[in-house]
């Protein structure tokens, strides 16, 4: 009831090619997450699907029907805007109810739905406020509420949780996932949060400068990144890349090891270096270790470790977890 297909979709603003050509098929009921660096074209792609921008070329099919000439209101999608775009003259209730009102839903049902959504979003006591009397996170939740009360063919979420605190974010994440599964609605979700991307997505699209670098399940991306860009982008802290003899030994131009796949010891075999920075997160510690001839490597160690800045550390990568890339940055299948 809501498959979305992009066929060589292109978009330029003036002479800036923002999306040089993207093809993609999102299955009905699937939860797809778009990730990519800031400015890579995620919002643009979402807006193209929504119909808020014209494609410069290519086709967009919803349920197999070409919609490039269908106005947004008729595409049957709902969207959370990165900029919220709340209706300033309406109360929170009015904002959330607007889409339902447009669909001529009976008053009582609207009320029920709005109250339900407000409950989920922790907005119940703010229902009568105007957007300007809300905090940033509350505004964002109203924007989410507006999208989820409806039963569209697909949800489009543009960084919907960026202004929420961790606890709420976890809750909202679970709520959105639950809702999406329950309704079986397709969802396209833009986020910068690795945890969100990894936990919510059925499949992740990695975008880079308007190009799709990889499209696959979260674990696929984590475990088998298609190229250097994806490898570096997925995972936090990012993968360490090592070039030179160490890489050549393994038949690659570059090898990559994730910080969590390196064991640290005070002595032994491996890359020797000096701890330059130690970031303590409580649960983990991130060590930035200067290894002569290689550069700074990041290591993640669980809990608090005795190592301090200035100490010497020996790093041993887990050999089974080393990624290899060729001269073009493409992964070499192991």
């Amino acid at each position, binding site marked *: 009831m809501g498959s979305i297909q992009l066929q060589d979709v292109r978009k330029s603003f003036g002479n800036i090619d923002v999306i040089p050509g993207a093809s993609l098929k999102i299955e009905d009921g699937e939860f797809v997450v778009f990730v990519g660096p800031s400015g890579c074209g995620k919002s643009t792609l979402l807006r193209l699907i929504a*119909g*808020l*921008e*014209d494609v410069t070329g290519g086709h967009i099919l919803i349920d197999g029907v070409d919609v490039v*000439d*269908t*106005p947004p209101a008729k595409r049957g999608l709902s969207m959370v805007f990165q900029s919220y775009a709340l209706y300033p003259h309406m109360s929170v209730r009015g904002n959330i109810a607007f889409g339902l009102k447009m669909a001529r839903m009976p008053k009582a049902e609207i009320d029920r739905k709005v109250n339900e959504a407000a409950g989920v979003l922790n907005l119940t006591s703010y229902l009568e406020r105007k957007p300007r009397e809300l905090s940033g996170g509350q505004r964002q939740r109203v924007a989410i509420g507006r999208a989820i009360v409806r039963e569209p063919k697909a949800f489009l979420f543009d960084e919907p949780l960026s202004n929420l605190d961790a606890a709420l974010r976890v809750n909202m994440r679970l709520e959105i996932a639950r809702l999406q599964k329950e309704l079986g609605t397709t969802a396209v979700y833009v986020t910068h949060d690795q945890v969100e991307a990894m936990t919510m997505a059925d499949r992740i699209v990695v975008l880079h400068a308007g190009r799709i670098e990889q499209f696959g399940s979260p674990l696929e991306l984590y475990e088998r990144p298609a190229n250097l860009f994806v490898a570096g982008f997925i995972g936090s802290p990012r993968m360490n890349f090592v070039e030179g003899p160490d890489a050549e030994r393994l038949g690659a131009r570059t090898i990559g090891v994730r910080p969590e796949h390196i064991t640290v010891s005070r002595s032994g075999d491996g890359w020797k270096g000096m701890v330059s920075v130690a970031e303590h997160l409580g649960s983990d510690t991130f060590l930035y270790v200067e290894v002569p001839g290689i550069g700074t490597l990041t290591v993640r160690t669980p809990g608090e470790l005795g190592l301090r800045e200035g100490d010497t550390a020996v790093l041993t990568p887990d050999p089974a977890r080393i990624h290899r890339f060729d001269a073009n940055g493409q992964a070499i299948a192991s």
Partner: protein
Amino acid sequence: MATRQTHMLGRILIAPSVLLLFIWMIVPLVMTIYFSVLHYDLLNPGVHDFIGFENYYYFLTDPAFLASLKNTLVLVGSVLIITVVLGTLVALLMDQPVIGRNFVRLMVIAPFFVMPTVSALVWKNLLMHPVSGFFAWIATSLGFRPIDWFAQAPLFSIILIVAWQWLPFATLILLTALQSLDEEQKEAAEMDGAHAFSTFFYITLPHLARPITVVILIETIFLLSVFAEIFVTTGGGPGLQTTNIAFLIYSQALIQYDVGGASAGGLVAVVIANIVAIILVRLVGKNLET
């Protein structure tokens, strides 16, 4: 948002107004062009001889023409400057927290309520009259010689009256525009260390650029055809000092009843207005976009 559908739709939405205005423009325009090449004297309606460009020739070579062109431009220019500058300042003032703000605003807008003829009469006789006017009384009470407004500074007097009438227009448009200025931008500027003065120049004024443009263009159109104020106060005199193009055409049409001449004059006025508008658009038109 600029999508094909919205463009399509845009065209449909603009269509009624374009169509109506087109008819409203073209029918009289064609008739006017036609009349302008006729010898058409309203008091002698039987005779409609084709005389080519004679009407234009007479209008353009009228010794009053150049003088009135100059007066028109001076009038329009001065009133624009006065209304835009003062209008901005007054709008800013009205935007401040003021006790009894509604009432003050109403007082400021009020001059626009008065019909041009009436305001001209009131100014001429109750305020500016050199013997029994209010200003004369003030001047005499302060020991000065009253100014003989319409003899010593006739055009300036007209400018004063017209500016008084049009200031509320500018004020109201700019005030409304000020209301939509995002408060956070001003806050950001304050955080950036901008004081009231810089905030005005760097934040408020750019925000007002478009409304100011609109004020300028709309006012220009109206000011080019100011005439009741002149007719009532000076009758275009003394000499040609207060004759403007509109008054000249008026006297062609409704004093001489020379329809042909007035049509030619009207078309000349359209050309002049267009030139003025094009110059203005060159100067300020970029503010209309974005």
